[in-house]
């Protein structure tokens, strides 16, 4: 009766196997897959592009029509941040400059046979700062696996909630002055970031697998440098006005100039993250976004 029968053998083996599977399968690195402490490459890779035959793309993003007025941000509930702003902080959804150009447009090479299959070295860390309860920069570009240093300069709770669609996001807190490293492993245009503690704080990160990306600055200008000569599709992305693409030819030693034009009557490209609820509907809300 107490000899290890077939059933007992089966149970024992199954239990042991489960233990082994759980033990091996459940473990992942204790750091989140997205956060790296040091450069992933053991050796610094050489840039595969030959600068003697490379060219550049530069240009600006124009804005047509009357600029929509941005709402002021009410920071009265967060005095530490309110005190950091000498003028009322405004939402950065649409930033039209005095010279009729549009800032915060992410411009990047979407297609290009000349750089197809090339492996580019990963640049050093890019900085995303939370200062005065505002993300600086509002729009940024990084390479796949490039470290993003997220800094809390405010000394109060911010969380950085990234919700990409092509890869696992992250939601991590910074309760005081500190820095956290994150990176993205899959190209994605664009990854939205938000702070849940301060609902007005949003940012966007464009992740591409090459270094040819730029964000239009305070005079609407952008530049992509040291591209191998050839034809490229360059796309411009704006959080309110959507995307536009152009085909561009890069010549060796030359700089090709292009302009993107967004206008006030372009449709909203990005669906708002949450739709308001009808307060007088006491039934179950079914289309809650």
């Amino acid at each position, binding site marked *: 009766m107490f000899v290890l029968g077939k059933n007992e053998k089966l149970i024992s083996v199954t239990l042991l196997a489960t233990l082994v599977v759980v033990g091996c399968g459940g473990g992942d690195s204790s750091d989140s897959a997205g956060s790296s402490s040091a450069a992933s490459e053991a050796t610094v890779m050489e840039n595969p592009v030959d600068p003697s035959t490379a060219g550049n793309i530069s240009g600006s993003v124009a804005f047509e029509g009357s600029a929509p007025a941005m709402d002021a941000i*009410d920071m*009265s509930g967060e005095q530490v941040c309110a005190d950091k702003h000498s003028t009322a902080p405004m939402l950065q959804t649409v930033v039209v400059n005095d010279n009729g150009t549009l800032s915060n447009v992410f411009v990047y090479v979407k297609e290009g046979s000349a750089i197809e299959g090339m492996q580019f070295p990963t640049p050093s860390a890019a900085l995303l700062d939370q200062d005065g309860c505002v993300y600086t920069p509002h729009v940024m570009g990084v390479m796949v696996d490039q470290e993003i240093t997220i800094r809390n300069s405010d000394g109060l709770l911010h969380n950085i909630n990234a919700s990409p669609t092509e890869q696992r996001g992250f939601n991590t807190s910074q309760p005081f002055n500190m820095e956290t490293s994150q990176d993205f492993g899959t190209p994605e245009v664009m990854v939205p970031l938000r702070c849940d503690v301060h609902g007005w704080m949003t940012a966007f990160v464009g992740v591409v697998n090459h270094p040819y990306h730029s964000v239009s600055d305070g005079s609407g200008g952008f530049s992509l440098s040291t591209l191998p000569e050839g034809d490229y599709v360059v796309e411009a992305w704006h959080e309110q006005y959507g995307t536009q693409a152009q085909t561009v030819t890069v010549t060796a030693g030359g700089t090709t100039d292009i302009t993107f034009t967004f206008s006030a009557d372009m449709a909203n490209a990005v669906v708002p993250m949450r739709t308001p609820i009808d*307060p007088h509907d006491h039934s179950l809300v079914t289309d809650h976004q």
Partner: protein
Amino acid sequence: MNLSWLMPESVSTFGPALDNLYYVILWITGIVFVVTEVVLVYFMIKYRHKEGRKATYIEGSSKAEWIWTSATAVIVMALAIYSKGIWDTIRHPDMFPENAYELNVTAKQYEWNAAYAGSDGQLGTSDDIVSRNQVHVPVDQPVIVNLQSEDVIHSFFLPQLRVKHDAVPGRVWPIWFEATQTGEFPLACAELCGLGHYRMGGTLIVHSKEDFASWLSEMQIEAEDDE
């Protein structure tokens, strides 16, 4: 060290009745606590093992059982009946005040967003006034708050008004209260809602009736300017 059993000052019409009930329970449980523990310790000392003295063989006493069972039952049921009145006042839909000022509070990770009727006088329209983490109400005026949530369950807690109710996503829960003092009072989240739960605070700002009216019209003008 704060070891007070006294409730903090209350500033709502619920306060006196609810606090009274709390103190009644505190007295009853306090007396039971002291008597029980004293008897326990007394027996431990009096009946500790002494050479030569044997325990008395007692299997029980039906009489004693009936007495303490019924006494306990009567006391606890009386407390339940006493509680019912206050519970109904606070929660029963029939007891919701007729002339209440209505506003919406929508909870989200990790903010409280209040909405008040704009110049059109209708709550839930595009000209609603919104405030973040500040809930403005008039004093001595019943207020109905429609609690909602955008994401997970939060809990709307106004400790000094003795108000607490969950905000459940997918539902709208109306609650009412009436503040009896002007001033600013804490608003806290009382249901674990994620990493920012500990810092999901706000302020209830109780205005005098005149100040509330002027605040409201000021905000309505601002809202119109924005449009």
